[in-house]
């Protein structure tokens, strides 16, 4: 299910948690059907349109959605029978839940503050200088307390114009479509790819979106990958080069691509 079909009015969400909670809580949608990559891109584009995006914000969002992604990847990827070192799905869910609940608390507090604000702004306070006789006394009691240079340096700050923000590094790299094309092209020429070799020099955002693209290709049966150990090299293969019945294996490294190679 694509982001557009979800009928999300991105304007009404204050942040990714808001958005994710809504997606997760929509009765009619199973998590497995949601195109997270689409939502990520739609969200990033939306934030960017509002002129609010810096790379840091994008990274924040990706780190966040990674928890949800982890859950989802367990739907798409076959489960290994044996021991797993990573978080059990339940733990991953609990972790994400904890963050959502923390956010929920402050969203509730924000609603409360909003009510206080609406009530409070009906009260206007007097803002008047002191009557002249009190001002005279204050003047007599005044001793130098501030540095005049503070004013001169403030003028300097105000004369400074920040350089135009450089956004060239953001947009061109985050198209899921583009990453899909790149992956397909590479895989049409070579049956196997090392992720780091192929994409290691790209920036973090590009690498992350490439991973989304890989997930997408796996779902469509176009590619699979093999990572023998945590943080180890990721080897991408097309189904024709790996033994079809066991597309991914995290434990038994000798199967799949490796054995095909040794033949």
């Amino acid at each position, binding site marked *: 299910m694509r982001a557009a079909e979800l009928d999300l009015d991105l304007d009404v969400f204050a942040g990714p948690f808001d958005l994710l909670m809504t997606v997760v809580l929509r009765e009619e949608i*199973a*998590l497995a059907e949601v195109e997270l990559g689409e939502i990520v891109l739609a969200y990033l584009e939306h934030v960017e349109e509002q002129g609010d995006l810096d790379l840091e914000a994008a990274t924040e969002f990706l780190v966040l959605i990674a928890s949800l992604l982890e859950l989802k990847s367990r739907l798409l990827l076959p489960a290994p029978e044996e021991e797993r070192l990573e978080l059990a799905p339940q733990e991953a869910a609990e972790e994400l*839940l904890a963050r959502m609940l923390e956010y929920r608390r402050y969203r509730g*507090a*924000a609603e409360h*503050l909003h009510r206080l604000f609406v009530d409070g702004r009906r009260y206007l306070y007097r803002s008047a200088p002191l009557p002249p006789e009190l001002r005279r006394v204050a003047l007599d009691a005044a001793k130098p307390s501030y540095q005049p240079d503070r004013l001169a340096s403030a003028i300097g700050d105000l004369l400074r114009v920040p350089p135009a923000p450089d956004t060239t590094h953001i947009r061109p790299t985050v198209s899921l479509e583009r990453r899909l094309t790149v992956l397909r092209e590479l895989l049409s020429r070579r049956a196997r790819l090392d992720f780091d070799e192929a994409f290691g020099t790209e920036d973090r955002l590009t690498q992350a979106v490439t991973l989304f693209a890989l997930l997408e290709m796996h779902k469509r049966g176009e590619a699979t990958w093999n990572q023998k150990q945590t943080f180890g090299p990721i080897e991408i293969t097309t189904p024709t080069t790996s033994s079809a019945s066991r597309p991914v294996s995290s434990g038994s490294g000798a199967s799949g691509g490796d054995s095909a190679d040794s033949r």
Partner: protein
Amino acid sequence: MTALQRIVEALLFLSPEPVSTAELAEACESTEAEIDRAIDALEPTLDGRGVVLRQVAGGWTLAAHPDAEAAARRLLAKPRTPPLTQAQAETLAIVAYLQPVSRPEIARIRGVSSESAVQTLTERGLIEESGRSRFGAVIHRTTPLFERLFGLAGLDALPDPARFDPSPEDERELRERLLKAGEQRAE
């Protein structure tokens, strides 16, 4: 009205900021207990008048009755303060409850960089910088103006944030829906 009540009322009228009981006692050369009594007696005499007594930002202050708001904005050409956006309200809530709090911490909780909300709240005088954390990040806290505009007697007048946590049923539902991922994978 006693002389002390009259003087307390005059001081609250003159002072541009809320005045604490201790400050009133010092200025009036009386005890805090006497000030407390004077304030208690003053409050009902304002009933039905154009001015109300409010306890905000750690002190006492007078404000115009809300009924006069529209006329006052016309007279003083004072536009209504714009409402807070949700991003601003969330950021303000995080600063109010966790202060002093750094910008990365705000971003962590909101899940999104909150630069522009922090900047707007600072501009509006609701939060301010209060130094740097051990890691060099700017840290923020709320201002007395925040307490005044939000009608808070003090920061401890904010309700326990646990009150805003979702109900156990809501939490269970959220957990269940997240865990569905795990169940479906057995298929």
